[in-house]
């Protein structure tokens, strides 16, 4: 009998860390962009969105992975969607009960996690063929990779768009407005999220040249 693989073997750790950098769902695979544009005008919703995706993705990955030998391949996409949709509704209900303000800000975008391509992609590509524990790590890793970019984008957009971080008027406190600085209203608009993501992709690829496609 084969030795059991340690829980945090280097192979498993790679599942967790790869999506943070060279296999990032947003900057490398360019998935889930739509939500990255929509909810990154402020940090707080971006963070809540990241945790919602984390909950949905890790749990759905584990569920699908546990069922992987029972799911008839012919209806596997439907099964995956049902699991995702159920998780998303649960998350939405919890937000409405415990974080009403944020859930209002996120409005339809929580529901739209169902259509986030990252989640279906991971279920289909990973959870269907792997054991629950690696599937869980893969889910956490990919959601974290998504979340890191979301938070990074939201940080720049809130800082330069509203001069605040988490609603705290940081530029006002350091007296930047007194010397003639003005907030850049463009940063609040969705197109600037695309620009910021573009800049992040540029920085990442210039540091890691093997990511550059021809």
């Amino acid at each position, binding site marked *: 009998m084969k030795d059991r693989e340690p829980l945090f073997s280097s192979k498993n750790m790679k599942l967790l860390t790869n999506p943070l950098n060279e296999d990032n769902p947003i900057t490398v695979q360019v998935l889930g962009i739509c939500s990255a544009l929509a909810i990154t005008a402020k940090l707080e919703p971006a963070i809540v969105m990241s945790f919602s995706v984390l909950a949905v993705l890790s749990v759905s990955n584990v569920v699908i992975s546990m069922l992987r*030998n*029972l*799911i*008839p*391949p*012919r*209806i596997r996409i*439907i*099964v995956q969607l*049902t*699991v995702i949709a*159920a998780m998303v*509704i*649960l998350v939405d*209900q*919890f937000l*409405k*009960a*415990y974080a*009403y*303000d944020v859930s*209002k800000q996120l*409005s*339809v975008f929580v529901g739209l996690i169902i259509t986030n391509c990252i989640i279906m992609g991971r279920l289909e590509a990973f959870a269907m063929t792997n054991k629950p524990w690696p599937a869980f790590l893969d889910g956490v890793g990919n959601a974290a990779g998504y979340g890191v970019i979301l938070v990074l984008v939201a940080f720049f957009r809130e800082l330069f768009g509203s001069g605040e971080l988490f609603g705290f008027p940081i530029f006002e406190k350091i007296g930047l407005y007194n010397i003639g600085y003005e907030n850049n209203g463009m940063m609040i*608009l969705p197109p600037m999220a695309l620009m910021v993501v573009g800049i992040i992709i540029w920085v990442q690829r210039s540091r890691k040249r093997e990511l550059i496609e021809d």
Partner: protein
Amino acid sequence: MKSFSNIYIFVFSTVMVILVAAILSSAAMLLQPLQQKNFEIEQKRNILASITIESTATDAESLYNKYITESFVVDSKGKIKEGVDAFDVNMTDEVRKPDEEKSLPVFVGLLDDEKKEYVIPVRGAGLWGPIYGYVALNDDFNTIFGTNFGHDGETPGLGSEITTSWFQDRFKGRKIFSDDGVFTSIDIVKGKSDPSSLNQVDGITGSTLTTNGLDNMLKDCLKPYEAYFKNQMN
């Protein structure tokens, strides 16, 4: 690839759907009291906002009890309806009824300067979904003291601007009756409104359909109160 019989597929999907339904409905039932509470707090905050009182989720309850001194329901003849709690009136249902059957809630706010404000809930259709809010009238039942509008899914940057203070400030001091005492509501005008008219405000460029909805909402929801307002004025 393993193959599964058709029967297996049917059984599998049936069991899965029933399980998921059970989980979701029990979660919805368990969380409903909390969600209901949040919704009420939100309503109270909106009512307070229409009489220009800022509140947070934590102090909304106490501020509401402090400033909203009474609330009651009237009918379209202006008589007070007994046995109905203004706060429990479901506006979604009310707007569908004919005027004569409507329960019309009124919330009375007493501000620090001892002035009474009458808060009227309004609800209507925007471009993409419902729009709703509260209109606060001075005790002449004519001049608008403040408004608070909300929406579920109007276009960000265009229709959704109805929630902003720069738009809502335009309503302050406007009148819902014309000079000769005819109910006119507030006209939201495309282009330039007549600066001498107190019954008009400027719309928002690029959100004609949302502001049309808002215009209709104000007319439809304030009109049934006309009898009550006139009774009170005399």
